[in-house]
């Protein structure tokens, strides 16, 4: 079958090559798809039936091919080499002498199987394979570019990978979580702490280089998304979709429309620092909401108790001040102190916007005003109120202004409330803000419209509210907020590094308990897309430095967000008194006082039942209640009932405090969440200023087909995309991962170009084997561990690397796997092995990365390197495995760079293997290496009794998993003598001299067997 494709392919390529030369390269997706092997469905065949091939199907496929060429496989390698090879392949560490001994002494038929199972079960397995995976997703802890700003909590993604590989997370699940882990109905939980595991995977989208202060932010988005698309498709599909940014792919069945169909998924998604222990926070929010109802009921009891005296107090304030207050109040049963509060509350100009405006107007005329005069004053007050109301209406509907939110009528519809603080809906007029004192359990009532308030349940909750994405058509955005220690960001074209130059004005840190307007000037970005982010969280945004004044205990309250071409907002609220009093015939002050009282009583009765927001004129009622409340006029006055109620309130407040105190520290991880769904146009020649046809979001056509359903209307559609990726019918998903596992274990993939299965990639050397493994992989539950086990147990894996001249001639380059390959270890494995032999390896897992060791050479002694950490990390990285070292893009560790760790820029499934003097210079002269040699020497001197030979043998076992050969022993012993002499160490001291043994240890680290595997 493959052969047939090959023939088709060859002929097509021939024709195509001619076409190219003739200057025409027609793009025909269907024929390209039909003509290239990688697009074809899996075609698993039975393993060839060969005598002597053993039970492992891998060997049958390999042997069959070798047999065709008259080749025999290389003989099985010796046991010491085998356990060394398997240990490095599976865990990235050499076996310890004890492990080697155990294997050597185990004569059982399953001795090797036991070794393999032990290695697969080792936590070191996950560390090794996570690092492989991090090469694919260009893992880094910083953004590189100009400022090398941190990507906060990127390490959680690394830990996710380690756990995933150790737990043998089914691969289809791993893929799904990378693409849409935030959208799963029941996300996977971290087994140890219950945090949301699935969402952490989506952080990989945000590990790209981040440009600082782009002048063309749309272009910067294009570059950034290009990287995301490229990494996504290379990693999971082995396809170079990035090549279709400017035009249809030159070689593969990938159209430019495919590229922009994927682009839309990114446009429809957003960056966040997800709260991964949100479940505890959710539970707390539910409990707090319950307590808030208790608080309301208890508080209403007290307030209702005060309400029946309102009219009497109001009228009492009219009493001429010359009369002693006490005598009057006693007469009518009022409390003198309370009357003083009333008098104070009514003092001062109560303007047209005050709920007691009519009272203030009419009280001035006196208790005994003539009805006619009263009526005139009353009408006058109404005229003023109506005028004010008209002003408010005009301000509200200023020509050209557009409300970004309408919290009162539409709530958060189209908006995105993340975490708990903003809740599911805004607080409506008549809702209340809880207080924390038993005297005032209701801090105030929401009024003047609906509010998105992060303290509606508790200031301890955190959260972010994001607007829909909108195209900037107005120069200004006016937002009206109150808040402390919170922030408002405008993110344009997904650009979230809000800082100077250019972007500093896109953040506002409100610092007032009274609502204030703030104006963002968006003139520079007209035509760009944006969303506004209102946040009250501990993690501010994509770069580390929290804007001044932003912290954990703040709150943010949003009332309005208005897009406008006018430089100043209009902000007149309708006068509450109009609705409260206009419809009633009032002929005297006592009538007015009674009206006030009945309004308060009605409103409080509704409030007690939680129905105030549903009352007509709830906003105006809330104004009245808030005025009463804020002047202490509804507080208890010390009756027996008060005492009971207050102790009940204290109890509830205590419960609330308990819930707040039990809140865990927030744990966050960079993640992807949904935003407003957006389909993108084709950018003609990759240029965003030249838009082609709209491309609805969908999977690559060559995989997903011609007719794909549109994503559900309110989501990005990433979950459906993930299902397309992991559909077993998509042969690439399984072939690519199976090939990656094979590549890492065998030294070269069945498809050598592991990240490119396209036409410019390489053909599989063993297509039948590839499909057999891919098919089995799916059937076996997408288990990477069991696949690795099958490969490592094969005779193919266990062959010697010895070369045979005839075989080399027939199979140059070992394409048919007639022997094992000699391989240089990766920089990480070299460093980790050094730490293991020196005894300094700390196997502690997880957590923030160990800071980079900054030498004067790392930045060339240069000053002013932006993003340079304040303090250097330890030279030995605290002995932690290399996977736990921080990856700062602009300060990559020199040893890893020299040993070909790929720069974290793009998917790098196959590392280059170079041979440069810097490698030798590091192993010869780097202080870290010499330091570790010293530790190793001391360890051997301490652990092994005073025999030079036994110590040397031990060092060989530690470093090379074998005893030294006679000539090696002889060389080492002679070295101790001759070198001891060179160092001027007396012969009788050479046996224990740490410096001398350090030099021997250093020599052994430089022996090539330390860095090469056979």
């Amino acid at each position, binding site marked *: 079958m493959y052969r047939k494709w090959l023939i088709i392919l060859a002929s097509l390529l021939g024709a195509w090559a001619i076409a190219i030369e003739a200057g025409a390269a027609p793009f025909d997706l269907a024929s390209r798809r039909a003509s290239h092997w990688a697009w074809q469905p899996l075609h698993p065949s039975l393993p060839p039936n060969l005598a002597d091939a053993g039970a492992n199907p891998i060997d049958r496929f390999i042997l069959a091919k070798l047999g065709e060429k008259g080749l025999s496989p290389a003989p099985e390698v010796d046991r010491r080499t085998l356990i060394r090879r398997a240990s490095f392949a599976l865990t990235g560490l050499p076996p310890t002498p004890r492990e080697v001994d155990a294997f050597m002494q185990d004569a059982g038929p399953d001795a090797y199987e036991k070794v393999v199972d032990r290695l697969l079960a080792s936590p070191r397995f996950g560390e090794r394979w996570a690092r492989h995976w991090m090469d694919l997703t260009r893992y880094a802890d910083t953004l590189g570019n100009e400022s090398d700003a941190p990507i906060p909590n990127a390490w959680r993604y690394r830990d996710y990978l380690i756990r995933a590989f150790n737990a043998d997370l089914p691969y289809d699940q791993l893929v799904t979580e990378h693409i849409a882990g935030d959208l799963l109905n029941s996300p996977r939980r971290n087994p140890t702490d219950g945090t949301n595991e699935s969402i952490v995977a989506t952080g990989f989208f945000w590990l790209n280089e981040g440009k600082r202060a782009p*002048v063309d932010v749309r272009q910067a988005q294009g570059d950034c998304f290009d990287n995301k698309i490229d990494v996504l498709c290379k990693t999971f599909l082995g396809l170079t979709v990035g090549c279709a940014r400017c035009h249809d792919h030159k070689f593969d069945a990938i159209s430019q429309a495919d590229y922009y169909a994927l682009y839309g998924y990114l446009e429809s998604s957003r960056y966040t620092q997800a709260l991964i222990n949100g479940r505890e926070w959710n539970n707390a929010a539910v409990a707090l909401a319950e307590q808030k109802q208790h608080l309301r009921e208890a508080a209403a009891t007290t307030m209702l108790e005060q309400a029946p005296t309102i009219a009497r107090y109001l009228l009492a304030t009219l009493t001429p001040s010359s009369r002693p207050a006490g005598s009057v109040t006693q007469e009518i049963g009022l409390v003198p102190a309370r009357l003083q509060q009333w008098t104070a509350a009514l003092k001062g100009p109560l303007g047209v916007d005050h709920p007691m405006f009519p009272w203030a107007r009419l009280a001035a005329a006196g208790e005994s005003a003539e009805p006619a005069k009263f009526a005139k004053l009353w009408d006058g007050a109404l005229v003023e109120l109506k005028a004010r109301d008209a002003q408010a209406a005009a301000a509200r509907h200023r020509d050209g202004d557009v409300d970004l939110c309408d919290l009162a009528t539409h709530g958060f519809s189209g908006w995105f409330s993340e975490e708990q603080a903003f809740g599911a809906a805004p607080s409506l007029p008549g809702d209340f803000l809880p207080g924390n004192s038993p005297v005032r359990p209701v801090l105030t009532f929401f009024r003047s419209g609906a509010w998105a308030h992060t303290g509606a349940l508790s200031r301890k909750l955190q959260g972010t509210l994001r607007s829909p994405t909108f195209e900037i058509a107005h120069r200004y955005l006016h937002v009206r907020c109150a808040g402390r220690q919170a922030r408002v960001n405008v993110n344009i074209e997904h650009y979230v590094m809000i800082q100077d*130059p250019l972007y500093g004005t896109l953040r506002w840190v409100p610092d007032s308990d009274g609502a204030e307007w703030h104006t963002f000037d968006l003139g520079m970005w007209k035509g760009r897309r944006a969303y506004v982010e209102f946040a009250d969280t501990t993690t501010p945004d994509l770069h580390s430095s929290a804007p001044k004044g932003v912290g954990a205990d703040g709150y943010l309250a949003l009332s309005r967000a208005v897009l406008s071409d006018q430089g100043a907002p209009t902000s007149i609220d309708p006068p509450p008194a109009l609705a409260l009093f206009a419809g009633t015939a009032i002929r005297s002050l006592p009538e007015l006082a009674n009206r006030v009282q009945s309004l308060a009583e009605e409103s409080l009765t509704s409030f007690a039942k939680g129905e105030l927001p549903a009352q007509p004129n709830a906003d105006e009622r809330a104004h009245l209640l808030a005025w009463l409340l804020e002047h202490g006029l509804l507080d208890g006055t010390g009756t027996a009932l008060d005492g009971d109620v207050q102790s009940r309130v204290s109890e509830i407040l205590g419960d609330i405090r308990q819930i707040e105190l039990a809140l865990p520290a927030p744990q966050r991880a960079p993640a992807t969440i949904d935003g407003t769904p957006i389909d993108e146009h084709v950018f003609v020649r990759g240029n965003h200023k030249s838009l082609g046809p709209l491309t609805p979001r969908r999977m690559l056509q060559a995989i997903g087909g011609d007719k794909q359903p549109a994503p559900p209307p309110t989501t990005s559609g990433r979950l459906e995309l993930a299902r397309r990726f992991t559909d077993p019918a998509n042969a690439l998903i399984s072939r690519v991962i199976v090939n990656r596992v094979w590549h890492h274990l065998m030294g070269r993939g069945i498809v050598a170009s592991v*990240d*490119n299965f396209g036409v410019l990639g390489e053909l599989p050397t063993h297509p039948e084997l590839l499909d057999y493994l891919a098919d089995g992989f799916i059937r076996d539950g997408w288990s990477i561990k069991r696949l690795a086990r099958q490969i490592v147990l094969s005779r193919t894996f266990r062959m010697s690397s010895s070369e045979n001249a005839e075989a080399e*001639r027939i199979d140059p380059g070992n394409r048919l796997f007639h022997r094992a390959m000699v391989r240089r270890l990766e920089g990480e494995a070299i460093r980790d092995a050094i730490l293991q032999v020196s005894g300094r390896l700390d196997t502690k897992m997880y957590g923030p990365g160990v800071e980079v060791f900054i030498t004067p050479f790392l930045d*060339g002694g240069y000053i002013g390197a932006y993003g340079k950490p304040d303090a250097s990390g330890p030279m030995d990285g605290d002995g932690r495995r290399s996977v736990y070292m921080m990856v700062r893009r602009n300060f990559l560790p020199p040893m890893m760079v020299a040993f070909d760790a790929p720069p974290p820029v793009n998917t790098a499934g196959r590392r280059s293997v170079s*041979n440069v003097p810097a490698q030798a210079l590091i192993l010869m002269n780097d*202080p870290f290496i010499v330091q570790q040699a010293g530790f190793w020497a001391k360890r051997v001197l301490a652990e092994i009794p005073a025999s030079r030979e036994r110590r040397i043998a031990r060092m060989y076992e530690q470093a090379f998993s074998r005893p030294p050969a006679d000539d090696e022993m002889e060389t080492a012993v002679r070295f101790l003598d001759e070198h001891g002499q060179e160092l001027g160490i007396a012969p009788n001291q050479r046996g224990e001299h740490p410096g001398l043994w350090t030099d021997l240890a250093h020599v052994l680290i430089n022996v090539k*067997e330390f860095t090469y595997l*056979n």
Partner: protein
Amino acid sequence: MHCHRFTEAPLTRRQMLRRCSAGFGAMALAALMGDRGFAGTAPASDSPPNPFAPRPPHFAPRARNVIFLFMEGGVSQIDSFDPKPRLAKENGTPFKMKVEPTQFNNNGNTLASPWQFKQHGNSGIPVSALFPNIARCADELAIVRSMTSDFSEHAAANYFLHTGFGQQGRPSAGSWACYGLGSECQNLPGFVVLNGGKMPIGGPAAFSSGFLPATYQGSLFRAGNDPIANIRPLESRPAIQASKLRAMRQLDQSVLRRFDRPDALESAVANYEMAFHMQAAVPEVADISNETPATCALYGVDSPNPSTRLYAENCLRARRLVERGVRFVELTVPVYAGDPDTWDAHANLRKNHEANAAAVDQPVAGLLMDLKSRGLLDSTLVLFASEFGRTPFAQGSDGRDHNPFGFTVWLAGGGVKGGTIHGATDEYGYKAVENKLTMHDLHATMLHLLGVDHKRLTYRWGGRDMRLTDVFGDPVAALLA
């Protein structure tokens, strides 16, 4: 071309040893042989895959080496090599052209150059008073007044100038040159960056070999005689290290036998020879104490200005590196603590540019003259370039913002037509309007002078045959002698 996959050289180690001239480099190939990208993409020749050995160019080169004087931060074209009298006439008035978005968006009025221009040499090339010494070499210079870049931000523009791409991850021009041509020096790196005191904005990614093997990585040399990490043996005497290396070699022989002498291992063994020799060669080349007082004075090594001194020393080291066959030498600008702004004159243009010019003017002129008197200028391309230029209107009142739309770079030396001016900006010096050059054109020209066809210098990566010039660029004939 599409059949790269079939072209992997079917060489055994022994065949290879026969085919390639001896030397460790022949074996260093082995490790690379497995890497598909390398095979079949070596330029112009089916042979020598030794990553360090010199490789034949595509055609007769005009220059063997490059010295790239990277004027980080952005030299102002209208204050250096592109005089615009109109700026003086309209000084302080609103700028008359449409202003493109700038990095700081704090755009002021038209700003005249504070410096006078005079014509110099037989060619009569105008140079401002900022560069009195470089002006004396005017007849050597090919001045490009119509250079452009795609980026207004330092990091992206630095990557673009160095790698032809505005993000991290692509190989630097020096890496490409070494990949294409190898090195003519077996004990020094082929691509050396001489430190001027500050990491360029965007970090070492500008000197990275990107997807090319680490072999072609730029080596950053610090000032002084101890220029790179791990070059100094930690042993107190050479004999001690020698004794250890002797033991290592013997033990390596045993390993070679055990492993059946695979190519990769032989290469690694040989690699130590190069490293060992580098230990002596690197400090030697960095040490300028044997240069004559006259030579030192020519460069300004005796200058009272510490920045001039530092840059003079590095220019002198650049000549020494080129003399020894190092393919590509880059110098970053001299900067001392407390003034890390390079040429990035967002405010106080006069003070900034005077300080920077004072640091580089004499050393650069000294380098050109010294190369010439030693007969090296003919084979050395000297490139003086910033990542972008500056705006003809003010930033604030007395600074200039970034301007990628039209700025000046110059070339001198091997194969370059001295005493020429190529291209032009508009009458304000804002945008290139005549013979506009892209960064890819500059790279193509540079490679052309080295004898390399920029379209044929490719490396298979990420599904494409990558080039320094992406899919763009043409050598500029008008600049060639």
